[in-house]
């Protein structure tokens, strides 16, 4: 197994412009109260990381109850909206419309530069090394049709599928050669690369997603995900004060080991686990500076007050090196 580290700089504002992000979160807060205030519509779930049933709510955020699993350390919302309710929410709520009409569109260029290019490098490298004959690519829960286009430009794949693009209202924006599909059962061991970027956090059941990926991938096919992880510095230190714990966007913030265990159990061999997140230290520092009263260990306050950008950069690098950043990417091969 391997782990990759990225040493260049990235600012949170590059991918999540603060004003727009705050506007989105405010809409989300108002809409969730409207859509999900009737808790009888919500479903109680066991820990999606390890199926432990005994976790209790630890904090509330925008009316949702977040649990921290005492067995595996995953953060998750329970009770939570069903899959159908989520789909309806993203399609029709003001927040959902804002997300796709404004947020996704306006961050496209910076995402292309700061995120898509890395993803494409990642996919190219993995295919070269582990699946040189790969032709069929599947993107689960497509949010950025442009990414599919950029990937198409590499000439590696001849066939593209997008599953559930309507989740984010992207179906009309997909390049013409991308076929859309429902997740259920149409794939049977015919996918070479199954990608799920930042989607584990949002689905009702991550386990079901892994099961579908396993059913869809051919033997030797690749399953690749990116996700937020509760094992990382940002979430461990800030917990409910993290500006990125937002529901229902992040129903599941699974622990690193919970993610890898479940993927392995679904029939994959893990070949890479990296936490290439570049933002933890910046985010924690910013939250502390905005709100010095939050319960933060004095050690971190000391670092932020007394050490320069160099020290913080090295610290973020350390987090990456030892898989302690809050953004994880995993690659696995179907057994």
């Amino acid at each position, binding site marked *: *197994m*391997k*782990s*990759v*580290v*990225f*040493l*260049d700089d990235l600012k949170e504002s590059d991918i999540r412009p603060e004003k727009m992000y705050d506007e989105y979160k405010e809409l989300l807060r108002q809409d969730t109260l409207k859509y999900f205030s009737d808790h009888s519509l919500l479903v109680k779930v066991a820990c999606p990381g390890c199926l432990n049933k005994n976790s209790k709510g630890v904090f509330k955020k925008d009316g949702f109850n977040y649990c921290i699993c005492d067995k595996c350390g995953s953060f998750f919302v329970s009770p939570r909206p069903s899959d159908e309710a989520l789909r309806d929410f993203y399609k029709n709520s003001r927040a959902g419309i804002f997300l796709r009409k404004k947020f996704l569109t306006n961050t496209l260029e910076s995402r292309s530069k700061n995120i898509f290019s890395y993803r494409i490098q990642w996919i190219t*490298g993995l295919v*070269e*090394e582990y699946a040189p004959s790969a032709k069929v690519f599947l993107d689960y829960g497509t949010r950025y049709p442009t990414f599919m286009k950029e990937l198409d430009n590499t000439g590696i794949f001849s066939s593209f599928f997008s599953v559930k693009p309507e989740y984010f209202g992207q179906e009309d924006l997909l390049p013409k050669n991308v076929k859309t599909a429902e997740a259920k059962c149409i794939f049977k061991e015919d996918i070479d690369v199954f990608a799920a970027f930042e989607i584990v956090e949002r689905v009702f059941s991550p386990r079901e997603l892994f099961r579908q990926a396993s059913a869809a991938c051919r033997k030797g096919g690749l399953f690749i995900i990116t996700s937020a992880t509760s094992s990382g510095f940002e979430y461990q230190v800030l917990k409910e004060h993290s500006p990125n714990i937002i529901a229902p966007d992040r129903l599941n913030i699974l622990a690193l080991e919970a993610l890898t265990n479940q993927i392995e159990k679904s029939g994959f061999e893990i070949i890479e686990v990296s936490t290439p997140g570049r933002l933890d230290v910046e985010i924690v520092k910013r939250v502390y500076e905005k709100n010095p009263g939050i319960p933060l260990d004095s050690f971190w306050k000391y670092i932020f007050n007394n050490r320069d950008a160099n020290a913080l950069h090295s610290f973020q690098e350390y987090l990456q*090196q030892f898989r302690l950043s809050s953004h994880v990417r995993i690659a696995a091969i179907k057994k």
Partner: protein
Amino acid sequence: MNKIKLPLKVGIIGYGKVGRIRHKCVENHPHLELIGICDSDPKALHNSKIKHYGDYKQLLDKNPDIVFVCTYNLYIPEISIEAISRGIHVFSEKPPGRNLEDVKAIKRAAINNPFAKVKFGFNHRYHEGVAEAKTIVDSGRLGKIMWMRGVYGKAGGQGYDCNWRNNIELSGGGILIDQGIHMLDLFRFFCGEYDEVKSFVGNSYWKVGVEDNVFALLRNSKTAQTAMIHSSATQWRHKFLLEIYMEKGYLEIDGILSSTRTYGRETLKTARCVLDDNKYPLPNPQENMTYYDNDNSWRDEINEFVDCIVANKPINNGGIDDAVKTMELVQRIYCDDNGKPNLGADSLSRRALYGRVL
């Protein structure tokens, strides 16, 4: 048509540290079954239930399909040749004998007995960092290799001067033939052959009758691709570093996973050469690092060997031709084009190091 009967019966000859590692690999392979171990010291087996042989020929008489030769370098040719001539597949540790003559003798046996597959333990090719670097090089996306620079150093450490590896009769040489040979194999793995060799072979510190430091330059006169190796037993720490510089970027493998983990975390650094507006390279391009957690090199080289036997495929990594070519480099580093040793001022006497071997 030769029919393979599984599992393949295996004998291990020589049961020191490496013999025990091979034993584990055999145990974990579904197509292999260990039928006996030969070691001059029966106590080496630590009461294992496996049948012990004091004489390797008795073990060969049991008709194993494969033998692993994990002895001192001195015995590798004799045992390998005997096994090959009986049609037994041979997996031998590196170096493939003490000198070029040894490995050429093994090659003659292999040519006369083409059924027997022969492979040597150049396991570094199977390290994940090396394999990933090879994929990147072969993809051509960073252009052609221009040069490589390799450092393989040992701390020396406790008992270094008493180690059999420094006994010329048993080993044939010092740090280069023991450890530096892996780096030479990797130079060839990435870049092919070298016809020009310049070197200094010295004994700076240990005074053990074999070299403890080698500096060598290798060049392919047609392509101008150049490689530089420093193989050292006075590094005062364990160190592995292989830098591969190409037309459009570079790779560096720093650290290599070993059983002791003392060569550092295996890391592959990759970077592209980034040009400024005037098309000149920027001094600090962005570098990405990949860290590796597991050393599966021993397992993977055995898997490949067994696959080649079962499917009757040629040995493409660490076969007899690789062994001969790499030993040719060792020989040329040890002595110049006139056959004279390339000794530094601090070096050994010619007789002490080379009188017997070359």
